[in-house]
């Protein structure tokens, strides 16, 4: 669907969010009728601690241009420390990705609580803008397909 | 055993606190410790540099440390509490702050390692003297004394590492081991007025006055100090003190090193007590076998 023409390029962004804070926050954006770009689609997890970062790779391999990972604020985790572990693992994973030369600006890590409907809209919009500027992640997708992802497979 | 230690006397020990230097030298000699002066040492800058010029307040002490390091010294004895404080603080700050250390190194043209063990007089006594006093002691320091530590020797406590912040005991213990009775008093670490001695003698009179009076009120027969500034404020500034408190108090002020020298039976010339403004009229008893001491005590009653 996508073209390489940046003007008509519509980024595809996948959001991995936790059930208790950001999912509920995004619900609030809806109930408050705050508008944002339709490019982002949400996948629900019990907690950011559940998020296996290979999933991010999987998303890129399947054509995502950007990813948002969002959960509860540091001390508000529904499971006390899941988000803390997610964050720590993310740091390590990020360094690894940096090392193999991936552009980590395509991944946005944030905290959105159940009360922050407006913040969710803002994060979506700025992320979509950023990714639009970065352009399609085609080379990125290739890199992943070739290097990291072979053995995990497409189902 | 060959005992040797670096020595930084500092300016006052060459001048107004000459007797402190003499008594430390006497003490070292008595216990076979060689004091080796830091080569070509300069003034540490004291409060003046601290107050007026931050660069100097680091550069002057740093040059002393550099000279000592260059001479291969590991420990240095710094009897003056003010110098001890400046040298310790500068070494501490430079030790933990690399960029500052580089800047200072550039000014003094040296390469500081900041690993000297800087000893104050009490640490020196604990390390080289205390264990050996026993046989050498001839006289019993059978007096009630007030150990006065002042501020520069003990603060900041986390850097200088004194035993107890508000109520240090190290000097008291040395004095007790000589047979003295040390008073428990609250002004051990109050300030005497330090560097304001010349410019605001009035203030020094007030501050030192409180200290001298408190010691006298609690029955001290001498004040024991470890700092030339404390000594000059409490000893030479007696007129200002008397003016401030409105009474005459004649208890002498003795350096801790002099006190040990006295207990060793050294002469006035060796201890330097003849140089004090307030005369040191203290008669010490001969040290005798334990039971006799007990009898003496009962006689006193």
């Amino acid at each position: 669907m996508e073209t390489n023409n940046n003007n008509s390029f519509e980024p595809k962004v996948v959001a991995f969010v936790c059930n208790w804070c950001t999912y509920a926050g995004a619900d609030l954006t809806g109930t408050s009728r705050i508008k944002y770009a339709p490019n982002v689609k949400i996948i629900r997890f019990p907690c950011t601690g559940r998020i296996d970062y290979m999933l991010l790779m999987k998303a890129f391999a399947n054509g995502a241009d950007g990813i948002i990972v969002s959960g509860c604020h540091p001390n508000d985790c529904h499971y006390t420390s899941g988000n803390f572990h997610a964050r720590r693992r993310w740091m390590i994973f990020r360094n690894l990705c940096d090392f193999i030369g991936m552009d980590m600006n395509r991944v946005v890590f944030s905290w959105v609580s159940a009360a922050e409907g407006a913040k969710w809209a803002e994060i979506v919009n700025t992320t979509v803008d950023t990714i639009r500027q970065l352009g399609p992640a085609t080379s990125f997708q290739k890199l992943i397909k070739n290097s990291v992802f072979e053995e995990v497979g497409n189902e | 055993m060959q005992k040797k230690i670096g020595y930084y006397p500092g300016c006052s020990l060459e001048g107004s606190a000459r007797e402190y230097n003499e008594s430390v030298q006497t003490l070292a000699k008595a216990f076979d410790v060689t004091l080796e002066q830091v080569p070509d040492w300069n003034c540490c800058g004291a409060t003046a540099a601290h107050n007026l010029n931050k660069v100097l307040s680091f550069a002057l002490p740093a040059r002393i440390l550099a000279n000592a390091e260059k001479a291969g010294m590991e420990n240095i004895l710094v009897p003056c509490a003010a110098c001890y404080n400046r040298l310790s603080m500068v070494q501490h700050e430079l030790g933990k702050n690399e960029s500052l250390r580089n800047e200072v190194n550039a000014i003094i043209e040296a390469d500081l390692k900041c690993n000297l063990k800087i000893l104050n007089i009490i640490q020196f006594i604990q390390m080289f003297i205390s264990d050996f006093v026993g046989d050498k002691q001839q006289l019993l320091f059978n007096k009630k004394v007030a150990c006065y530590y002042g501020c520069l020797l003990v603060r900041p406590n986390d850097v200088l590492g004194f035993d107890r912040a508000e109520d240090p005991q190290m000097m008291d213990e040395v004095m007790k081991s000589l047979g003295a009775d040390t008073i428990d008093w609250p002004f051990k670490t109050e300030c005497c007025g330090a560097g304001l001695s010349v410019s605001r003698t009035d203030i020094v009179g007030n501050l030192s006055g409180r200290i001298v009076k408190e010691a006298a009120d609690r029955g001290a027969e001498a004040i024991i100090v470890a700092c030339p500034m404390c000594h000059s404020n409490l000893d030479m500034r007696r007129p200002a003190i008397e003016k401030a408190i409105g009474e005459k108090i004649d208890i002498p002020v003795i350096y801790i090193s002099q006190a040990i020298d006295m207990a060793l039976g050294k002469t006035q010339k060796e201890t330097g007590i003849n140089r004090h403004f307030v005369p040191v009229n203290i008669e010490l008893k001969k040290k005798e076998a334990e039971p006799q001491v007990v009898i003496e005590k009962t006689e006193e009653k």
Partner: protein
Amino acid sequence: MARIGVFICHCGENISATVDCEKVAKVASEFPGVAVSVDYKYMCSDPGQNLVKEAIIEHKLTGVVVSACSPRMHEPTFRNACAEAGLNPFLCEMANIREHCSWVHEKGDATTQKAIDIVRTLVEKVKRNEALAPIYVPISKTAVVIGGGVAGIQAALDIADAGHKVVMVEREPSIGGHMSQLSETFPTLDCSQCILTPRMVDVARHPNITLYTYAEIESVDGSIGNFNVKIRLKSKSLDEKVCTGCGACIQKCPVKKIPSEFEQGLGMRTAIYVPFPQAVPNKPVIDRKNCTYYIKGKCKVCEIVCPTKAIRFDQEDSFVEVQAGALLLATGFDVLKTSAFPEYGYGKYKDVIDGLQFERLASASGPTKGEIRRPSDGQIPKKIVFIACAGSRDPAKGREYCSKICCMYTAKHAMLYKHKVHEGTPYIFYMDIRATGKMYEEFVRRAIEEDEVKYIRGRVSQVYEKNGKLIVRGVDTLLMGQPVEIEADMVVLATAGIANQGSEELAQKLHVSYDKHKFFSEAHPKLKPVETNTAGIFLAGACQSTKDIPETVAAASGAAAKVVGLFSNDMLKRDPLIAIVKKSPPPVYSSCTGCFMCIQVCPYQAIDKEEIKDRNGNIIKTISHINPGLCQGCGTCVAFCKSKSIDILGYNHDQVYAEVSALLNE
């Protein structure tokens, strides 16, 4: 073969205004595995629900996707509907096309396309859903209450009155805690013992309560519903069943000069003792560290004088084990000792005391029979200086927090002093006055206005002794830092409330978390204030942070209500969305490599080790094992497991990978 039903809701106009619902339904009908796809105006209405139920039966559906509002809104509704039609409720998912789509985007193709993508994603997910059954855990309806202060007493009585068994474990020889030491209590100034003692007696008498004093928790294992608690009963050196509590032994014991813990060192006790006359149980224990017999092997006076021959010198510690459904922590707090204050004399001045010591001086049953007399010489002090925030709000001393109770008890102390010594002058040095409870501010104002307590805003720098007086050097910060020097007869430090001794070890035994000051942590500061992060373990009172009595009792009743709520079921029903360790047939058994990373990251200590043994009992392999009663389903372990040996029901690998692919493959 999957047979999925898709139900697209218009929500009146809420969805259909921006999303072309008919198109979504049509496109969805062509997704592989979709047996039926329809749209309807209001899915959650009765006709809407019937539509779903009928389709399940008619099309023999294996899964349902309701594309409507947020699952946080109607997931239970539709899962129930499915269950009613005979489909396992966990085979129903919701696709959120309202909050996450129609309400946040403009009308247009992109919005409709997004709705289609969302539906596709959930269809792929639901194909991989499994039929699940809720987990049921049986509950032992006994609560162990640890600590017998007012918190423990209140909670124990509440639970016992609700008809459940309670075992109370108190480490001192008597229950009562700090409240039993208090004189009168703010803000009403009623006598502490008078209100507490009857409740202590109730505990001892209650048929549902078993009281173990002089006892401690040895170990705890198991989980919510079924804890196994081992209790150490320290030897009291006497047979409690035989002892009548006559006190003859106490009167005759020759060791009489042991500083009494109850009197905060202001009074003395004997080696065989009860802490205070109203103690419950009112039977003595021998303090072996101080008893001449245990030290020197001679004495036994108590044994000789005991009319019932109750003394047992050779008694040893014993143990009891209790099966408990819930644990309740009520171990209280302590106060910092005056020796922590170098500037106030390192605790060496006898007349510089702490707040609890003042309570004992003011207490009618205390060492001075309620007369305020200073400890050094028994004189009645003419001037007392109270110092608030002593060691609290003092990061330099390691405690930045406000202890919360001392403003109030200091006002109380000054007031009690003034009531007893009319000519005396109380001064209070303070930083701020925190009096936020009901009638608290009024209480403080009364101290200032009616009892003429002199409040001085400033911290005291130094206290020292001179000629039998305590010289207090402070300032008045409301007068530009003007120095204030008071020659006082007595100084009372409102020392910081601190975590009780031993709380850290206890927390570790129970796997509950605690803060850096060693107070136990609540599960959520606002919404779960009496729960810990470990299911089935609750908190009450000052062991969580210093609290006054009203707050302590409120927390205790709250915690008791939680326990009673838990005990109101025979079985504990839990959502089955939890982690499991994948098993495989021998000889592999499981891909788990036994690295036990998962054990370290689980926030609930839900994972332990499981040994796989052959028929002869030899261990073949040690793998991890998840306790379904403890697992809360966060999934952290899943993400951490390198060998992908753990999965989590409802969010398993298959499901989430399928979702990611489906979301992007338009």
